[in-house]
């Protein structure tokens, strides 16, 4: 299968010397979902804006369906759809007018654009609000409208920049369904997310981005396997006890334990035997966990292992 999206050594520096991208390369196979995972400010949105021709890279190149994003940007724009982090819809227009406008600007006739608008409004459960100005919409409705507008021309390549940030759980699951349906119909999707669970669940392949660089790439299984170990979560009941437990374990444990709130996380490289070791150490210090759970590593663990800091919103802390 050919690659729908290819980027080579993209570099972008903003005014004031902020290096948003420091040599990002990507390859996304046609018909697959690719996840760009990283914290705020990692460069995900900058990468999307370059791939959607909104920004020019300082150096490096990128192609979408074989069209160069700088030299053949018009051809790129004719085959992409973009739904942004901040819903790019017109507040003063109604939902129907918004989709119709985008349809006409992608060179559908007014009639076809209107028909598609009605279909999409129904599909995204906005029919009742179709004739109301968008300024009366809730945040979730705006996001659905934004996505619907991106789909009006049925583009083969879709860029979704943090599509579920701020969505309620119901809308998030519905969006996951939409992405599955689109790739089922042959679309290629590149999405950015801060949600590790989402990347894990949706993306065929992932690139972990941190400070403008891709620090790991692969399937989510590959990334997890690179960390290797099963994780033991020890809930100590409160933060104070968790800090004490962290100190006790840090002194004796082969891989650094991590604390997240009242929970201490341990990598279990030596199998089940290590569970009894850990509990023994804690028992000696008179620190018995309230609950414990054994689980496979999450992408949050991957992130921590790769970057030395947790993903955005994670409160994990490593002993000093």
């Amino acid at each position, binding site marked *: 299968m050919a690659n729908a999206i290819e980027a080579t050594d993209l570099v972008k520096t903003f005014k004031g010397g902020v290096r948003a991208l420091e040599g990002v390369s990507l390859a996304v196979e046609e018909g697959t979902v690719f996840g760009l995972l990283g914290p705020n400010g990692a460069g995900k949105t900058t990468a999307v804006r370059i791939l959607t021709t*909104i920004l020019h890279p300082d150096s490096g190149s990128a192609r979408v369906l074989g069209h160069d994003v700088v030299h053949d940007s018009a051809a790129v724009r004719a085959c992409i759809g973009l739904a942004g982090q901040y819903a790019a819809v017109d507040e003063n227009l109604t939902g129907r007018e918004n989709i119709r406008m985008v349809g006409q600007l992608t060179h559908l006739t007014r009639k076809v654009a209107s028909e598609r608008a009605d279909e999409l409004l129904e599909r995204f459960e906005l029919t009742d609000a179709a004739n109301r100005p968008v300024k009366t919409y809730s945040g979730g409705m705006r996001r659905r409208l934004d996505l619907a507008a991106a789909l009006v021309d049925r583009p083969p390549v879709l860029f979704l920049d943090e599509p579920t940030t701020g969505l309620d759980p119901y809308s998030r699951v519905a969006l996951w369904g939409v992405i599955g349906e689109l790739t089922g119909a042959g679309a290629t999707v590149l999405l950015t997310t801060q949600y590790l669970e989402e990347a894990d669940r949706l993306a065929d392949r992932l690139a972990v981005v941190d400070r403008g660089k891709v620090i790991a790439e692969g399937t989510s299984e590959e990334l997890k396997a690179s960390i290797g170990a099963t994780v033991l979560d020890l809930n100590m009941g409160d933060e104070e006890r968790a800090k004490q437990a962290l100190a006790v374990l840090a002194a004796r444990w082969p891989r650094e334990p991590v604390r997240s709130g009242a929970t201490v996380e341990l990598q279990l490289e030596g199998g089940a035997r290590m569970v009894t070791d850990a509990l023994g150490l804690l028992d000696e210090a008179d620190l018995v966990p309230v609950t414990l759970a054994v689980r496979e590593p999450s992408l949050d663990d991957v992130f921590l292992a790769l970057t030395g800091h947790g993903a955005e919103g994670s409160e994990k802390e490593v002993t000093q």
Partner: protein
Amino acid sequence: MSTVALPVRLQTPAQQAKTTPWRAVLDALVVMERNLIAYTRVPEALFFSSVQPVMFVLLFRYVFGGAIKVVGIRGGYVNFLMPGIFVQTVCFGSVSTSIGLAEDLQKGIIERFRSLPMARSAVLAGRTLADLVRNVLVVIIITGVGYAVGFRVEAVVGFLAGVALLLLFAYCLSWGFAVIGLSAANSETAQVMAFPILFPLTFAAGTFVPVSTMPGWLQGFAKYQPVGEVSAAARSLMVGGGAAASHVIGTLLWCLGVLVVLAPLAVWKYRTRTA
């Protein structure tokens, strides 16, 4: 959950990627329609932009007008005033181009436009065309108000020619104010940046008082600056008196100059602005 399918188009029709001049016109009209719809959704904005010129008509006709002596204009000060009111109204109206573009940039809708296969010129052309349509409406309202306070035209053809000339002037000026809108951080800043330019242009001109009553050092500026020329031209065409032809030529030259210099600057600003 609805059962409407979400098909995906795997081929890109060749014509879709091309921007032809005809497409650029259609795209501009789509954006113009969007801006006009927005005006109807915020009717208070349109209301207030018409109230202001009406206030100026009443202010100058009944408060200041008695103190302003004009010679050589049939019908007296009201006929001198109204062409100036038209000019001032359309000039002030062009600030809405700055404000509208600054707002669009703030809200991220331009981000969407930049990712669409539409003509790059459409956002600016659609905005300036919408403001032209708005100016036509306001001119019609002000004509009615003017008639009510005693404004009488010399000849309808001359009046219409004057209106056409000042609408053309306002359209060109919109491109200038587009530059401000694209340079400002937000719509409030755009407004603050526009007025120091607009005030001397609209008031230090023969809009409300004869240029001959101004101090000598100001007269040259007031006469030959763009708004000075268009006021003189519009007045000659609408109510007679003065040398219409030379002022019309002066106005057209200014229109050309503004378009040649500021329209490309606006397009360049739009292309390079990273929102």
